[in-house]
């Protein structure tokens, strides 16, 4: 098994060198940084699916939450917002939200005063409606005011360090994962998948349309880097090319340090009693319950842990590209891609997930130039035969990566259902 892993990682290294040689260092260096962030996300999913057997199809939502969090923490302060009435109006909206939540809570406890059965249900629905109307009546004018010129356009950031933003992304993702897990984890696998997709779509719709908080489709840029930017190196007297590479190398170093730290932590957790308990729950939760394990609480725990990594990974991606564009998030690129990474790499094995993430990210990014080259070749060939060239090669090759991704996952499911570096099942005694 070790030998197989080493061979595969060696092959991956050769592939990276090959990509670097063909596509150039600027391309490869930024892809490697992204691959490190995706590896973190894939490890998060590996915790949820590989360790815990939880079916999270809402990865996109957690990535967006992480991205929004790092934007909020690290973007420079917007003085126009803080000078206007925006903060006060938002405070009122928050108060309305709290009052609404209290009304709903009170309605849910109404059986204490003797309201039960259908009446309680009706009262709860009414309380939700009243709370919703109350909140809307405060948030709508606040949002309209902040989005106007007087309110500063949007809330802006806090001007903190990006690494703080990454941490906040993790914390925010954890909070949302806690709520989602509380709601959904009792569901069976396919229902859980559909429910999490639904929730991630709700998160996407909210982030995309809450212009006052995230600027929505107007996008936020440039988001600061945690490490020196190429411009800083250039100011120090470097030429453009080596400044770019040094800056990327700095970012890559930071990303790899985070990744190594996470890898070390979760490998320790996996090998320890906690990991054994999680695998026991995944393999047979009824047996685990009878051994006195609190399955629901443990699954919630693992769902939150995995989502923290997804939030941090999403924040790292946004910091790196320096732009937060909610409309660029797609289920294919940000949910299904991660799933393919974990399944092809090997669910339940951290090295497998890491391998799958880097390999799939490389396949994903090079399938476009590769298919363009193939199309160009076929096109010149068909032109020589007098059949004419292939129209719109650029647009077509951009779409090929979706097909390649589908092909990879179907082949993997058929011929290597446990992944390239499968989980090692230890048998003792």
């Amino acid at each position: 098994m070790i030998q197989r892993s080493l061979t595969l990682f060696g092959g991956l290294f050769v592939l990276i060198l090959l990509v670097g040689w063909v596509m150039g260092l600027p391309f490869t260096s930024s892809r490697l940084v992204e691959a490190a962030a995706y590896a973190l996300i894939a490890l998060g999913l590996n915790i949820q699916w590989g360790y815990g057997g939880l079916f999270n199809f809402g990865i996109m939502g957690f990535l967006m939450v992480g991205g929004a969090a790092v934007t909020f923490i690290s973007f420079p302060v917007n003085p126009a917002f803080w000078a206007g009435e925006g903060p006060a109006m938002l405070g009122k909206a928050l108060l309305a939200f709290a009052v609404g939540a209290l009304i709903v809570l009170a309605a849910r406890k109404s059986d204490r005063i003797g309201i039960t059965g259908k009446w309680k249900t009706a009262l709860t629905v009414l309380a939700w409606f009243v709370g919703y109307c109350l909140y809307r009546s405060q948030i709508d004018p606040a949002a309209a005011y902040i989005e106007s010129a007087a309110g500063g356009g949007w809330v802006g950031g806090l001007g903190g360090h990006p690494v703080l933003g990454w941490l906040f992304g993790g914390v925010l993702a954890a909070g949302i994962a806690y709520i989602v897990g509380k709601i959904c984890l009792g569901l069976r696998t396919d229902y859980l998948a559909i429910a999490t997709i639904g929730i991630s779509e709700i998160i996407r719709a909210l982030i995309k349309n809450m212009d006052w908080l995230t600027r929505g489709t107007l996008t936020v840029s440039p988001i600061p880097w945690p490490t020196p930017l190429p411009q800083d190196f250039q100011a120090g007297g470097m030429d453009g090319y080596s400044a770019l590479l040094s800056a990327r190398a700095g970012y890559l170093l930071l990303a790899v340090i985070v990744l190594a730290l996470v890898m070390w932590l979760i490998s320790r957790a996996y090998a320890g009693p906690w990991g054994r308990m999680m695998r026991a729950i995944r393999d047979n939760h009824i047996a685990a319950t009878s051994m006195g394990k609190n399955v629901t609480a443990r699954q919630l725990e693992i769902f939150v842990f995995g989502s923290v990594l997804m939030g941090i990974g999403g924040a790292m991606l946004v910091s790196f590209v320096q732009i937060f564009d909610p409309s660029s998030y797609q289920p294919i690129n940000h949910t299904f891609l991660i799933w393919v990474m974990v399944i092809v790499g090997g669910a339940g094995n951290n090295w497998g997930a890491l391998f799958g993430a880097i390999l799939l990210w490389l396949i994903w990014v090079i399938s476009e130039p590769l298919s363009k080259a193939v199309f160009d070749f076929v096109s010149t060939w068909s032109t020589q035969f007098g059949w004419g060239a292939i129209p719109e090669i650029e647009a077509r090759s951009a779409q090929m990566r979706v097909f390649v991704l589908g092909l990879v996952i179907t082949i993997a499911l058929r011929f290597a259902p446990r992944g390239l570096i499968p989980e090692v099942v230890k048998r003792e005694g």
Partner: protein
Amino acid sequence: MTELIFFINQVVIAGLVLGCIYALGAIGITLIFGILRFAHFAHSELMTGGAFIAFLLASAFAAWGIVTPIPTGFVVLPIAMVLAAILALGIDKGFYAPLRKRGAKPVTLLIASIGVTLMIQGLIRLFFGAGSYSFFENEPKEVFRFDMAAIGSTRPLVITEPQILMILVTFVSVLALHFFLTRSRLGKAMRAMADNADLAQVSGINTALVVRVTWIIAGALGCMAGTMLALDVTLKPDLAFNIILPIFAAAIVGGLGQAYGAIAGGLLIGFAETLAVFNWTMVLRPLNAILPDWMQLPPTLALVPTEYKLTVAFVILVVTLLVRPTGIFKGASS
């Protein structure tokens, strides 16, 4: 009465059309879930693929100079449905049957269906690009405007020809499905297998045949839904991919595995979406005359802003899963 006609135009017709499309898609999903026990995500691609097959056929008809009294999209629909059913059978044979034979878990089949989604979507985009197409490039889209002055409305009742045909076709096919499921031997076998697959097999039901018939029905109805959606709006590669979740919501709300539940769920979600974004001020405006000044209605009084239209379906989905996971018609439990 103007307000009533406005309400009918904005909510009743739009909700009915959307509900019909959701219902047709949800029937396929719910049947596949009932028989094969997995959530079939690639259903969206059966719908989009079916719509593109119909589009190609309609273009071919136009190129051959065949002129039809009703929109060509509806004329070619039966042929497209047959082709889509063959496509569905092929997908099953190529991708799901080998996994089933290996005894893979439903989760693996679900992931395989996502792989199929990606492959078909990639192929459609490869051949048709990312642009949008219309069935009505060579023929006009007829719009009927019924004058409602007789009942005192200043607005006409507006409905397009495809919308009328769509509602009719859905009604007929749902009726046909009902008779198939309740009267024919095969339909009864299907319901038996959905109820208890092992019991159905030991009582001599040809399960392989039932699986094939399920794919044929799912493919044909998916093609119908996709084509009608494309006839109502425009045809684009992510046509059905964007609405697959509302369709799943419809199937779950109705109770997974329950064909009638899927119809009810589809209509429910369709109407809920249109009602949620409906601007009530347009209907309640006459009240402004009797209401005191401080209670005048705001210019927009919708339950949720328009940009959250699709979110309504997800909220209903999540609430259903929490409150009544078996759906309205008591489907498979979660």
